[in-house]
């Protein structure tokens, strides 16, 4: 990494990551599904802008493609699918979550602090040491877990899963110079197909159980 054209500890980048971390907390604290989906969609768009900032010195078509695909996919297509599923199910809020909004918010805040501490414990390359990429990634993964475990609605759990994926995407930005385009596009493709299938399943569950309450999904147990 001898070229000095890029600096991953870029202040603008850290601003975007900080915003993304704030959106994590917003998603954790929101009881209404539309605002949760909005947090996730804005976070996806911020994530799409990051490769452009990282590579400001040497922009080429492949960086543009990754950025465009991320913004369209994470910012519009996926949230759109979820909004459609939400309207079809005619629900607006997550009823009585397993984990209340205030406890999950507190847990998320504690997780964010722990993420910063944990990121300090891991060795980083000099050009990454001033960056929030690793703490942001860990915090988003934790947020995703809290939502997936703590919420009742299938749509909220999908949101949690996507925030977890966003955390992994943040971490992947550390490797933007070494992960070939094939791998990147494969990952994006898988994600899109995955959400498409999740959307279908949500639709089927809705029809089969007449609700999107995963507490009704409890016939199978020992």
């Amino acid at each position: 990494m001898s070229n000095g054209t890029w600096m991953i500890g870029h202040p603008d980048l850290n601003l975007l990551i900080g915003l993304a971390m704030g959106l994590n907390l917003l998603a954790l604290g929101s009881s209404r599904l539309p605002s949760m989906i909005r947090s996730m969609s804005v976070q996806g768009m911020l994530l799409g802008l990051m490769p452009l900032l990282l590579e400001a010195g040497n922009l080429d078509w492949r960086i543009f493609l990754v950025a465009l695909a991320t913004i369209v996919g994470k910012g519009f297509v996926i949230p759109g699918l979820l909004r459609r599923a939400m309207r079809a199910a005619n629900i607006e809020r997550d009823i009585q979550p397993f984990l209340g909004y205030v406890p999950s918010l507190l847990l998320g805040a504690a997780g964010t602090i722990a993420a910063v501490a944990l990121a300090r414990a891991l060795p980083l390359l000099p050009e990454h040491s001033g960056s929030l990429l690793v703490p942001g990634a860990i915090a988003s993964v934790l947020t995703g877990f809290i939502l997936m475990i703590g919420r009742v609605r299938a749509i909220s759990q999908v949101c949690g899963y996507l925030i977890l994926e966003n955390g992994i995407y943040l971490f992947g930005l550390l490797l933007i110079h070494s992960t070939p385009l094939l791998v990147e596009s494969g990952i994006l493709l898988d994600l899109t197909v995955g959400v498409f299938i999740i959307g279908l399943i949500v639709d089927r569950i809705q029809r089969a159980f007449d609700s999107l309450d995963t507490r009704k999904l409890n016939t199978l147990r020992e």
Partner: protein
Amino acid sequence: MSNLLLIIVPLAGAAVAAVWPDNRTRPWLLPVFGIAHVVLTFWLFIDPPPVAPGDWFGFDPLARAMLPVVSLLFLVCAAYGASYLRIRSERPNRVFVALLLAILGLLSAGHQARHLGLLWITTEAVTLATVPLLHFNGTPRAFEATWKYLLVGGTGIALSLLGSFCLGYASLHGGGEGNLTFAALTAQGAGLSRPWVLTAWVLLLVGYGTKMGLAPMHTWKPDAYGEAPSIVGAILAGGVTTVAFTAILRVRAVVGAAGEGPIADRTLLIIGLFSMLVAALFLLGTRDFKRMLAYSSVEHMGILSIGAALGPAGVAAALFHVWSNGLTKGALFLSAGNIRRAAGSPSMDDVRGISILTPRSAAIFVTGMFAVTALPPFAPFFSELLVLRAALASGQGVATVVFLSCLLLAFFGMTRVVFAIVDGRPSPATRSNAERFVETAGVIAPPLALLGLSLWLGLFTPQILREAWRAAVAQLFPIP
């Protein structure tokens, strides 16, 4: 390049199935492409193509030791599938047939992937492709199982991607280029950053362990195996889990090259023993004979993990066990499918006297149960004996005791369920349901063939197979 045909041919088959107009003849595409795949695999098995270190896909010794059994299992399941889908001709099978063939192509790609990112993409694609197969029956219970599979499996696959990135960063931080081929990572060896290698190991073990179904990440398995058609269960248990095991073995070799092999082995041993224990305890409690197969699968994944922890001899035994478990479990799944259709229920509370109603399936099921619980002279007996020997040779006394006790408990648990449904007099309801099910050659010959293969593998393990396993071990443990 001939090895790429293993991926291309089944994917082409999937495309043909997707456009094939006739619902009644479409299932025959399964055995047709299954035969083509087996012929190709065994041709390459006998005459392995050269593999360059930088290749992203390669029929290397590890792929050679694993892929043939997946191919064989698929062919037998395909033959069964053609009969099964004829019984269920009321349902459209376009998606089912196309996705099964796509899964065969993706499994071939996963076993041959020599690049961490490609391995991840294929595993993720297999996960997504199995989803519509799981809810083929369209019942609410099947959707529930699918939802859990997506949520648990999706989280696992996400963590393994994070682990892959960590391994890439271990290479960057150690002064490498972040090249994610296994050859480059192994070559960098001790140059990889240790803290990042260990972080990556934990995440990759949890991630691919979820796909394998190691406890405590096994929770999707009983639901998925319990609700999916048996042919899907057989391919999940004998095919999809082996790709995850291949992934763990390849990553373990990188961790070993980085100098952290002992820690990796200890975690593999603990997670393997824990899986066996959890499976044995649940086997003592379950009342559903399809869920029983899932817990048995968790137990055998534990055995694979223990084998992988015990150095070269253990890994060789584990590769043998991949074969013996895949073939035997396949026979159990397919005969369980017959019994489930005839009995109309998967629970031992409702089903009795199966030996009267479907005598042939019941005989295969009972024999398969004895085979999978390591009764000689079936293959699992010999492969588990080799795992045991490797454990004793490396001085793992406590592990050996736990291993043997779990095998015994699992034996009690399984015989309890199996004899409850086989013995006794069938209830009138079961009897009238079973009258609609005929044990044709199409649904009896495939599980019988798998059972025969398991017996043959135990009695006369071919020399060429033993050499293939030895070559795979030599690939994973290069002499410095």
